[in-house]
């Protein structure tokens, strides 16, 4: 089992869109894949037309009780299951801090899935608290979508220094450019600079495209309703890159 967290400490960078599309592509390779919607807003859950309800409430995430495993739903797609969000997940940060070994609870909760799933993809909410540490501990690799803007890059720096300070292996943190506007000079320039300065920046990016926003209308991964679009192609490229660089490096 490989756990891949799509995470950022900044909002609106395309985390959920990436998580939904990547989990779909992972499942398409024939491997059983689970997408976990950790975000109380439940956008990924909505995209897959699943009801945002955990049988266990947020406690399942803390204590790994039966209910959380029974909450898994099959999506419309082969080999892809979902652990849906629940509005009560907003309390997760607080709940984690209340219990012992508070930073490895998520990892422990996910462990029983190892027998069934080859990939677990975590769609994470914006956080840099205890939940973030749970995510970093649970994930084999963390993937950070990066908008090529100064603020976004600045937050990324914050994340890296946070990881270094708390002894998280930064070589397991990768990033890719998201919501790229190819007409903006600044986007292009920043992409070049950032790729030089930071390690683990994947040479593949997702442009800012209306096709991706339409996910809300079609409630499906891009490749399903618009398989030949640039949007579908860019997620496919990103997934190929992830396989080559992160999952099966030569």
């Amino acid at each position, binding site marked *: 089992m490989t756990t891949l967290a799509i995470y950022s400490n900044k909002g609106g960078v395309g985390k959920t869109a990436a998580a939904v599309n990547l989990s779909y592509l992972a499942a398409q*390779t*024939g*491997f*059983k894949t689970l997408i976990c919607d950790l975000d109380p807003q439940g956008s990924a859950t909505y995209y*897959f*037309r*699943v*009801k945002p309800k955990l049988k266990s409430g947020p406690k399942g995430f803390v204590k790994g009780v039966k209910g959380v495993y029974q*909450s*898994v*739903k*099959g*999506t*419309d797609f082969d*080999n892809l*299951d979902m652990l849906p969000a629940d509005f009560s997940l907003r309390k997760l940060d607080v709940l984690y801090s209340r219990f012992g070994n508070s930073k490895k609870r998520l990892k422990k909760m996910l462990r029983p899935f190892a027998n069934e799933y080859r990939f677990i993809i975590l769609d994470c909410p914006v956080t840099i608290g205890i939940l973030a540490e749970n995510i970093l501990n649970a994930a084999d690799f963390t993937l950070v979508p990066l908008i090529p803007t100064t603020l976004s890059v600045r937050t990324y720096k914050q994340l890296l220094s946070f990881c270094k300070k708390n002894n998280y292996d930064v070589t397991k943190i990768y990033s890719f450019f998201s919501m790229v506007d190819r007409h903006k000079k600044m986007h292009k320039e920043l992409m070049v600079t950032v790729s030089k300065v930071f390690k683990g920046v994947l040479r593949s990016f997702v442009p800012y495209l209306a096709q991706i926003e339409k996910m809300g209308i079609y*409630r499906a991964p891009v490749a399903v309703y618009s398989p030949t679009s640039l949007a579908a192609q860019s997620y496919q490229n990103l997934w190929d890159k992830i396989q080559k660089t992160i999952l099966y490096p030569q």
Partner: protein
Amino acid sequence: MMTNDLRFNLPDGHDENQFVHHLADQYTIKKEPFFAQKVTIYDTFDWRLFNKSFILQSSGNRLFLRKLTKSEILHSVEFSRAPVFIWDFPAGELKDKLQPIIKMRALMKLVDLKSRSRPYRILNPDEKTVARLIFEEIQPFANKRKPASAVHLWLKPVKGYPKYASKLAKSLKEAGLTIGTEKEFFLKVLPSAGKQPGSYSAKVDIQLDPAMRSDQAAKVVSRFLLNVMRINEAIFEKDLDTEVLHDYRVAVRRTRSALSQIKYVFPAKTTDRFKKNFAYVGKLSNDLRDLDVYMLSQDAYKAMLPAVLRDDIDPLFGHLREKRAKAFKQVARGLKSKKYAKIMKDWETFLNMPPPDSATAPNAELPVVDLACRRIYKKFRGVVKTGSKILVNTEDKMLHVLRIECKKLRYLMEFFASLFPRKKMNALIGQLKRLQDNLGDFNDLCVQQKYLLRVAAALPGNRQQQKKTLVAIGSLVETLDRKKDTVKDAFATRFAEFASPENQALFKRLFNSHPSKGGA
């Protein structure tokens, strides 16, 4: 609650539309695009995957491993050329899983199939898929005119929505459909391509009746072995893998063992003639088998060498490869020779002859269970005796003698296994096998050492190259020596386990408590 895929058999002349129409009264149903794919199923000649309930199949550019009883994919890997041997697979989970099952056997294409599917999705009010129905037609790939060899309807529940699937299953059953399994399908599709799953196995599996006359029982055993020889002899020239010859040779060896160990059941003259004949048959392929073994352990040899010498050994294997090609041709010629054909024909004729009315040998009319008990118990005591001597004085030669004794005992126990309680027999054979593994390892090391020394003298190539290769061989011989010592050290423990008082008591109870006694 329903969580597994169900495969319903569809009756001939079923109407897909009518089924769907019927269901549409109760569910929102969405038709999906039709798709067809080529599916190829692989297994080894002796059905190793099928016997472990696995299906290895490819579609598109991926290989998939499934469990025979389920439809989900266990492992999958991309490939450009269909792998034949385990070493052709890329490193990974699939390779790790297959390695202990197929070992050195080649994978063969069993059958190419064409699967044509029409999927339907069952939707809930959110237009979320809550179950799937797939009409699938399977037919042989090459022969498109042939009618479909299987037609069925898959009901695939979607996780988390078991109620929908249960309800659907119920209505399909009410419509008169019956559930079929993956195994059933496998067993239906393969015969349509002329393949019988599990039809070949080199394992001795002979059913005998305890009261059967011993000469007849000996013929039943021999006929089984002859069949194994015939099957492998027929595919020998394809050079599939080294196991074809190996299985063949084991059958020859077992035949020789049967002739000498199932004593006094045939006229002495006959027994002697066939003993000689099969000694000749065995010898035909001795060289080739030895060469096969060296080639198989190529990687192991290399691993034994220090890194600086590793490439220097290549000329040796190049040389061996050439010798193997020659030896292979020689065996092929041998198997096609008149002499060989006559030996086999004579044997077959003899085995199929009706039993003579009057006994032609002292044990011919003895109930086989009596003879089996006697022979096994006697051999067992022989093994214990020889082994005990070795414990006092470990001579290489004696280990060799013991190895042969054990083999004879093993064959006897396998020939007659059906006459005794299965569980106990398996346990005893297992224990014997562990002892044999130890002795076999020791013997292999001795043989390899000897061979390397012999071949060193006859290596081709220029002198400089030769010298380097000779250094590498020298290093190998030394490593083998050390390994021999380790194996030898382990012998005492293995033997003590085998000759333990409990084991001796069990042997006695099983084979020496029979009412009729006497020397064989």
